[in-house]
């Protein structure tokens, strides 16, 4: 149980970090064009630090699924054939590159172009990291994992949680800026509202992806091997409650609160309400993804003796 809990924590936090990093990259891209580098830095710098902390916690959690955690470093030694080694290698590479970028960015060391190149490199490595993570599970002995739904759902988790986490992070960041630097508050408020609108839209679209992928996945399991059928049966039966909770929480978070967030971010003066909405959306979707990942591990039926 501890082992599964460690894997759920690790995969979700790591995917959220990569997703958040990508989302901040996009936010930065638009804000720089709209309001210049200084305003963009004000908006993203503090959130970047949060991403590194979350990634670090995720990596730490991963150690708890090992029988011999002290030997963890040797887990990268078989990268020529093992996707598990590749995952750890790309995970560490993403950690190093993103941390390097955040340090340079925080202290404004080096030209912006160089920092952007490092950030872009970190983003690409992060994408490969999530892909490698999904390949670990795509095994002929594990039919419920050995489908396209695994990478699709891992990337959906990354972007959904990443965007909502960063949306939620904008709120305290804005409160901080308003207190420290009232001059920029109005502009920052406009930027935040437009980014929250964009994030809410993304969340609704990704929810749509989940709501299309899930039934297709279940139907394909139900028409697959005996083990795949058993997985589908588990999700419809014994694991029906977490399955239902997952769908309801995702819909409530990304769908309902996402929609209201999109609506309310249109006009100024509702920052407080926006805060509650994006917090609620994030917490609900996080809970949904935890249930989803719990199902991922517990519904799998292996083709083994």
């Amino acid at each position, binding site marked *: 149980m501890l*082992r599964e809990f460690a894997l759920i924590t690790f995969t979700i936090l790591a995917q959220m970090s990569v997703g958040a990093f990508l989302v901040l990259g996009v936010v930065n891209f638009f804000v720089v064009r709209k309001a210049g580098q200084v305003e963009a830095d004000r908006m993203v710098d503090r959130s970047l630090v949060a991403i590194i902390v979350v990634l670090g916690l995720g990596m730490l959690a991963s150690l708890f*699924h*090992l*029988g*011999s*955690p002290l*030997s*963890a470093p*040797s*887990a*990268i*030694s*078989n990268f020529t*054939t*093992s*996707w*598990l*080694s590749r995952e*750890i290698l790309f995970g560490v590479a993403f950690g190093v590159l993103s941390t390097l970028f955040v340090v340079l960015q925080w202290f404004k060391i080096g030209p912006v172009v160089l920092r952007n190149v490092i950030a872009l490199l970190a983003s690409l490595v992060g994408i490969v990291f999530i892909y490698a993570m999904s390949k*670990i599970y795509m*095994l*002929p*002995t*594990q039919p419920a994992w050995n489908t396209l739904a695994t990478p699709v759902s891992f990337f959906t988790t990354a972007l959904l949680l990443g965007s909502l986490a960063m949306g939620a992070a904008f709120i305290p960041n804005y409160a901080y800026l308003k207190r420290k630097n009232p001059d920029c508050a109005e502009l920052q408020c406009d930027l935040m509202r437009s980014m929250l609108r964009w994030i809410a839209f993304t969340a609704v679209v990704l929810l749509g992806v989940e709501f299309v992928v899930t039934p297709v996945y279940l139907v394909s399991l139900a028409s697959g091997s005996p083990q795949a059928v058993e997985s589908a049966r588990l999700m419809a039966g014994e694991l029906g409650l977490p399955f239902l909770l997952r769908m309801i929480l995702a819909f409530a978070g990304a769908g309902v609160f996402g929609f209201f967030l999109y609506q309310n971010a249109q006009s100024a003066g509702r920052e407080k309400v926006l805060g509650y909405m994006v917090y609620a959306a994030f917490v609900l979707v996080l809970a949904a993804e935890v249930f989803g990942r719990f199902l991922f591990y517990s519904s799998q039926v*292996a*083709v*083994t*003796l």
Partner: protein
Amino acid sequence: MAKQLAFYFDSSACTGCKACAIACKDRSSLPVGINWRKVYDYGGGGWIPSPAHPEIMLPNNVFVYSTSTSCMHCEKPRCVEACPAKAITKRDDGVVLINSDLCIGCRYCEWVCPYGAPQFNEEKGYMTKCDFCQELQEKGLNPVCVDACPMRALGFGELDELRQKYGNVNAIEPLPSADITNPSIVITPHKNSQPSGQGTGRIIKLTEV
């Protein structure tokens, strides 16, 4: 041609007594929950009412047979390529071994192996599995499971030679398809043996395995 040691199993002779599994457990002092060799009883069929006396049930294709399994020391061992710490290796003689000093206990090999061969030792924090009794073989002795079988249903030797002698069967129910790993096993099927993936029965008394 590369050498490949393999087990031979005669399902038509096996009575399912599990002496092989016990000898294995004894020789390697395996703790509760870990069994490198296991015997699966696979059965099926049913009962139909007698046409003349419907109150009497007649057996209808009832069958059961046993399969003794261990690590198959596969030709294409998924565990070797999957192990992130290079703790599992395939020797020149085809034997697949886990180096417990290198194993980090991530249990990934448990997911990739179709035969349930690598098993986690909770207390020691690493994976363990059948080592083909390499110590005994170095002394010119047979693996204990082979010697323990009262029916002489187990054997071992060079895979090619075993195939020439006994044929190519390497996947009967409840074993999974041989396509995944090319297991180094030669089986003489029981008269009721069913090919992998086409079984009409089920594993009986799984808790007893």
